[in-house]
């Protein structure tokens, strides 16, 4: 008997005896899928990102957003920013700093070249699908032009989020996720809720243990 059959048959011995219906997850979730928010959703979001060690910027149009990124890169002494073309479009063009699009990266070099570029004082910018006020996190997705390492091997990670895409409660994203994962294609999504951090030495908080030291959400009010 294979291990698979062995395990399943042992489980079936119990499930057949217990005879309990599968949970109706949707209706159970329906009982709790709302959260009473007296405070403003955007304010709560900002406050909770900051509480988790992240930062939040805000811009009212594309120009302001682009300038904000330029200032950010200078402030942290970074050498370049790397982003998908779609993000540069959202910003109405490339910031006046060393800006590299991920499309150029993949045309130009090997995985090793890409890593070297990201590891050298870079800032990675990704677009976020949504943000969540109850936990202060954003949801980002890996795509061919937005690789995993762009928010990982860099010094700083900026997630661009439309202010209108902030939900009050994490379960609000359930249907979207359900849809995202409904095909049979590989998928890779990540909730990012702060910089890379640890408290493993005497519970002292240290940022940038393996990944970015800085995590920032840039809100687009437009």
């Amino acid at each position, binding site marked *: 008997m294979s*291990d698979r059959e*062995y*395990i*399943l048959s*042992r*489980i079936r011995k*119990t*499930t057949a005896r217990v005879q*309990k*219906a*599968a*949970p109706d*997850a*949707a209706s*159970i*979730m329906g*009982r*709790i899928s709302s*959260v009473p928010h007296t405070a403003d959703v955007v304010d709560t979001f900002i406050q*909770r990102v900051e509480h*988790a060690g992240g930062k939040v910027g805000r811009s009212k149009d594309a120009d302001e957003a682009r300038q904000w990124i330029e200032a950010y890169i200078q402030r942290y002494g970074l050498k370049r920013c790397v982003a998908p073309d779609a993000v540069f479009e959202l910003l109405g063009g490339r910031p006046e700093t060393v800006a590299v699009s*991920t499309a150029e990266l993949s045309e130009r070099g090997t995985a090793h070249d*890409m*890593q070297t570029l990201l590891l050298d004082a870079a800032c990675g910018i990704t677009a976020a699908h949504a943000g*969540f006020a109850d*936990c*202060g*996190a954003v949801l980002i997705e890996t795509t*061919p032009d937005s690789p*995993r*390492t762009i928010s*990982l091997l860099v010094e700083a990670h900026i997630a661009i989020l439309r202010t209108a895409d902030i939900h009050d409660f*994490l*379960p609000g994203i*359930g249907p979207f*996720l*359900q849809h995202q*994962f409904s095909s049979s*294609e*590989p*998928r*890779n999504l*990540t*909730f990012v*809720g*702060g*910089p*890379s*951090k*640890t408290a*493993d*030495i*005497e*519970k002292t908080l*240290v940022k*940038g*243990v*393996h*990944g*970015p030291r800085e995590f920032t959400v840039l809100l687009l009010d437009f």
Partner: protein
Amino acid sequence: MSGQKKVQVTPRNLKLLVQERIYNPQLRKNLSRATSTTLAKRADVVADFTQWEEMRSAASEIKDGVIANLDTYLEQFEENAVSAGATVHWAADAQAAQSIVYQILRDCDAKLVVKSKSMTTEEIRLGHFLEEQGIEAVETDLGEYIVQLAGELPSHITAPALHKSREEIGELFAKKLGIDRTNDPEALTAIARDVLREKFLQADAGISGVNFAVADSGTICIVENEGNGRLSTALPKTHIAVMGIEKLLPDMQSLTLFLQLLARSSTGQRITSYTSLIRGPKAKDDLDGPEDLHIIILDNGRTDILEDDDLRESLNCIRCGACLNTCPVYQTIGGHSYGTQYSGPIGAVISPSLLGVEEAGKMPYASSLCGACAEICPVQIDLHHLLLHQRRKYIERQGGNPAERLLFRLWMMTMKHAALYSVSGLLGRLAGTIFGGSNRTLPVPGWSKSREFPAPAPKSFKQLWKEHGSER
């Protein structure tokens, strides 16, 4: 006590370990600071929700239903994971899991493996096994890395190096990594970052655990703060994920609920820095990510737990560690005293099944039965009841001490009936007069010989309150 001679202390000698730990002031200081700050942070973020109790009971209901239909969910998960390009393996026990991992690593000619934190791989001693096979397997979670360098076991589910002071870590790094001595957590972290970054970039394979497995899409979810989990699953060509059969959830909607419960309960965060949802290996045009994803589904004693009508609910555990933090016994003796990978109340409940009675049969005694664990558990596992259940099983296996057996039966009865609660105090005080005398050690074999156990109070708090409380 007579019981002490009668019952052999288990090989992993609980008593000695406890004695050693209890007199270690550094450990006690670390422990109490860490557990109390985590509990305070937890209380803060739990207060966000007026419906926290409803969330707990919803989670418990979902998990109960999944566990009662586990075969269906596992098959569904497997089918969906495979359709996205993952390879699914099944392992009946630790040895089977080890050899599957070894086979995969041999097939891809791996020499260096990066591991992200996972209790399940600790349980099957995977790192140790790989080392024996001549494969370098580096723990990359900072706490686990420290523990690995020191050649120790983790002492907490979510904070493995909780037992070590900065001085000890400074000394360890200086000795093992040949660096200048520093005790500064920031500097020590930076050193580990440099060492481990090299490993990430060179590793042939990454091994991770799984926090949740979503059945209806074949997705695995990994929850962490450091980014080592993401790096382990982004850089190496092969990703191996090891999960217990109990990790299943029905769908994404339920997952969002469990994410909120897990982060708040474990570290007092609203969400961790990184929560990765991974379905299949890299997509064809992705610039990074693993070519191959292997998922190993592990039994290793879990179907024994499933079979036991009382213990079954312990499979609902999401390994948040809250029951450890809140346990007065854990706070005093720390994780190592339990002598096993899983410590604290949940460790005492599941370890006899996962690690064997020989190793862990006695663990359920490392508890004061105060019930704080059951109160805090985000999935409402009745740990208090399960600890008693495990103690009874232990006594039955040992043949037992008749007086203890009788007391237990009575105690179990009173626990189940609130009306009898006041009687149980009486029972305790009665036991005190039987076992107390001048040598006040508990009738629990090998547990508290060197500790003077306080004599049970002559009157219960309830009685005193009745007599004096109304005077105000």
